[in-house]
């Protein structure tokens, strides 16, 4: 009030001094903001809709065109400095200084968005070229792509009106990635772990592929040898047959057994049928069971003569001499006792019998001469069986993710079969090239911290704002990662402006639940 005279002359051009009655009217004016109501999406050409729209419009127009009455003393004077794109305060700042503005070179400045907001609130009057700026001028002059875009200002204003402390985000104030690594060993760990995981999951298909090929060629070779052997086998029976009459004749010749000197002839007596019992194509085993005679009651009747010749006394204890043995009565006495089996068991046995075939029908088995060879064969088969995986799955370029023959812990397996890798927001973000398309505009502090807020020591923001619009593209993963990395451990909120409406979105890390804990 003291310098009213001085300002009075200046104010002549632009100040209307209101009469008391006008002031009173302005004061008792309704402060209600018109209700926006439901949004109509389609014109239905009805009078009702038109009226409603008209009414709403006039309400808004009247609101905007309303003259604002401010107390001159409450207005802080400031000047717009276009070269610096800041507003310099000319008179002492008000309460807003706690959360807005900055000092430089002994002067106090406001950022354009702050100045505009304060203008709208009726706290600041900005002059440019000695003339006061209207709010409309402010919008035109202050908002530009080099300072603050309209959308950003909308977000700024919105948050300010809600009570948040909103400050410009200064990228340089953020710690460098190197400092982050030092301060945040966790993120370092994460990336290390990731690398490791990637290495373990690297596909081994090329090597296994060649292995399979080798195996298949080996198989072929084996087939070849087998077929050759089979040819030899075919020759064998003939020679065998050629021998048999001779042996039978020697038998008749050696009717009476003689000791030792007779060499092998003395146990040739019972040979007759036994020889043909042997499968002709099988390889000779160590024991020639055609000459070593067991009283096998299971052998067919023509193979086992009904009368057993007496064994040679030299084979028997106490130099026994025993007579012939009649086998026939014993045949009928085999297995007189019933096998006790339930019906179910019987059926199962029957089923099993049908399914299983004589292993000796296989040529490879018949070619084995002893257990060592047989076991080797079994091992080979086992190996082949495990290697003989379905060709249509493994021979192509695309193979199953995991070879079931190689047992690995379940955790690793799950990791291996997860086609879409789960990712962390900060994962690999440090390596991304910074782009200008997306940037963080503001640091936001919660309203309840305003009382303790210090501009010199701002502390950790509650959130950081990235402003975009529904017209623009949706931020891609790359942008999100980059911003998240830039922001560090403060969440980035995307404020999406749709003309007057602002929606807030945020992306958060979360872990898909796994049912295996390792």
């Amino acid at each position, binding site marked *: 009030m003291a310098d009213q005279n001085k300002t009075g002359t200046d104010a002549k051009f632009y100040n209307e001094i209101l009469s008391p009655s006008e002031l009173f009217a302005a004061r008792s004016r309704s402060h209600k903001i018109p209700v926006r109501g439901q949004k109509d999406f389609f014109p239905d050409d009805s009078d009702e809709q038109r009226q409603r729209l008209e009414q709403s419009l006039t309400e808004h127009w009247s609101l905007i065109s309303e003259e604002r009455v401010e107390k001159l003393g409450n207005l802080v004077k400031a000047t717009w400095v276009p070269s610096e794109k800041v507003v310099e305060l000319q008179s002492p700042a008000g309460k807003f200084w706690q959360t807005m503005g900055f000092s430089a070179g002994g002067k106090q400045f406001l950022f354009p968005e702050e100045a505009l907001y304060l203008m709208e609130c009726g706290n600041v009057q900005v002059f440019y070229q000695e003339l006061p700026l209207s709010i409309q001028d402010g919008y035109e002059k202050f908002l530009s792509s080099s300072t603050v875009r309209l959308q950003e200002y909308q977000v700024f204003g919105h948050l300010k009106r809600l009570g948040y402390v909103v400050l410009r985000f200064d990228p340089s104030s953020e710690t460098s990635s190197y400092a982050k690594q030092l301060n945040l060993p966790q993120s370092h760990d994460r990336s290390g772990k990731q690398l490791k995981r990637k290495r373990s999951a690297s596909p081994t298909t090329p090597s296994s592929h060649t292995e399979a090929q080798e195996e298949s060629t080996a198989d072929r070779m084996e087939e070849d040898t087998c077929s050759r052997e089979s040819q030899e086998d075919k020759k064998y029976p003939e020679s065998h047959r050629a021998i048999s009459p001779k042996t039978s004749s020697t038998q008749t010749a050696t009717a009476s057994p003689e000791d030792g000197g007779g060499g092998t002839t003395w146990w040739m007596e019972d040979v007759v049928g036994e020889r043909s019992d042997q499968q002709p194509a099988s390889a000779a085993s160590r*024991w020639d069971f055609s000459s*070593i005679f067991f009283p096998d009651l299971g052998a067919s009747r023509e193979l086992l003569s009904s009368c*057993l010749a007496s064994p040679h006394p030299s084979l028997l204890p*106490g130099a026994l001499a*025993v007579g012939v043995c009649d086998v026939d009565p014993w045949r009928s006495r085999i297995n007189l006792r019933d096998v006790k089996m339930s019906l179910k068991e019987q059926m199962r046995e029957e089923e099993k019998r049908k399914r299983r075939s*004589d292993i*000796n029908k296989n040529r490879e088995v018949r070619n084995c001469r002893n257990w060592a060879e047989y076991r080797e064969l079994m091992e080979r088969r086992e190996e082949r069986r495990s290697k003989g995986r379905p060709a249509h799955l493994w021979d192509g370029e695309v193979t199953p993710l995991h070879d079931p023959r190689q047992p690995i812990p379940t955790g690793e397996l799950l990791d291996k079969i997860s086609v879409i890798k789960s990712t962390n927001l900060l994962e690999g973000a440090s390596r991304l090239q910074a782009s200008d398309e997306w940037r963080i505009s503001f640091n936001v502090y919660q309203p309840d911290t305003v009382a303790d807020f210090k501009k010199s020591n701002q502390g950790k923001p509650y959130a950081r704002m990235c402003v975009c619009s529904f017209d623009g593209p949706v931020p891609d993963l790359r942008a999100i990662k980059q911003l998240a990395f830039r922001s560090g451990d403060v969440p980035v909120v995307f404020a999406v402006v749709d003309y007057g409406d602002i929606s807030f979105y945020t992306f958060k890390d979360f872990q898909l639940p796994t049912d295996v804990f390792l």
Partner: protein
Amino acid sequence: MATEGVETTSEDVPVPGKVSTRYDLEKETELRFEVEAGEAVEQVELELLTGMAEVFGSELNRNKKYTFGAGSKIAVFTWQGCSVNLYGKPEVAYVSKDTPMLLYLNTHAALEQMRKQAERDNERGPRVMVVGPTDVGKSTVCRLLLSYAVRVGRRPTLVELDVGQSGVSVPGTMSALCIERPADVEEGFSVQAPLVYHFGSTTPGTNIKLYNKLTSCLAEVFSQRCEVNRKASVGGCIINTCGWVKGSGYQALVHCASAFEVDVVLVLDHERLYNELKRDLPHFVRVVLLPKSGGVVERSKECRRDTRDEKIREYFYGFRGVTFYPFSYEVRFSDVRIYKIGAPSIPDSCLPLGMSQDDTQLKLVPVTPGRDLTYHVLSVSSAEDGEEGARKGIVESPVCGFIVVTNVDTQTQVMKVLSPAPRPLPRHTLLIMDIRFMDMK
């Protein structure tokens, strides 16, 4: 010896209170008699008067009285004809002409032929597996063949895989025994330094995995012995199996054949088993079907249990409980480690992913000594008393002896044991058996 004995009717020495019955046997016939089972039963004595006779392959001495206790089932066979006297009152006694002895003898002849060939070619002798259902005379055939083999100068090995009715050691074990002389008519084979493995139960079904593992162990040890001992190699082995021939039992037989690399399988009186083995064993294994003897008696469950009990008693007290004097002393819980082989099986759904049930069957589970340990038979494992690291080998280590827990005092943490040797225990790793023994007599 071989000459026919003069038909002298030896004047019957009157045995007070005993009836004497004389039997004249024609050649290739046998006298079968059974002694009643039960307590305080009169023993039956056998005496060969003239001729020659054998009991399960062991020859009888003339004018020597052989005593058979309760529950004995004996067949006296003669190749040439003989006369014997029985003193006492057997439950049954009859002469039978119907014996498959000639077939068994022919089998022996064939095996001997193989041994001769092995000797000549510097190879290993025949390995024979005797299989068949229960109560067909598997053990008897084994004894017969082993006795015959020893009598012609061989050194065969008896491999006893019948965990229920072991002929070598206590039940619940699997063992191998080198046979150097024919079986004693009364006692059977003399048990000297057998190789015994702990199985722990009387049926292989309780832990078939362990059963197969121990079979492989025995086979490996036997093969090693064959490499260094030429005589044992030529003598080969005769494997006695248990009477379980279905399902896993059958698989165990096939596994055993493969582990021992058997050359001959003797199937006693079971045509189906014969056909199955013919199909599942490679062609170079000779599978032979033999009849069972008509004299084979089916043993009841109780009878088997009594035999088992008797076998354990014999281990501690000697034959007929008169030869050995076992020791009884106290063992502190802290001095021994007691394990059970095989964790209890749990349903697959309760296992962690990627684990299979098989892993548990060979696992050693520590047993906390408690009152329920009483009367259990424990094997003293020959595994070195190492720390935890040595636990791995315990399953595959042979047993050096057995003890029975007679009393457990949980207050003083001490148990009283019956042991064949005085204290201290040779080793401190004990394996618990399912089998219990009450020292009652």
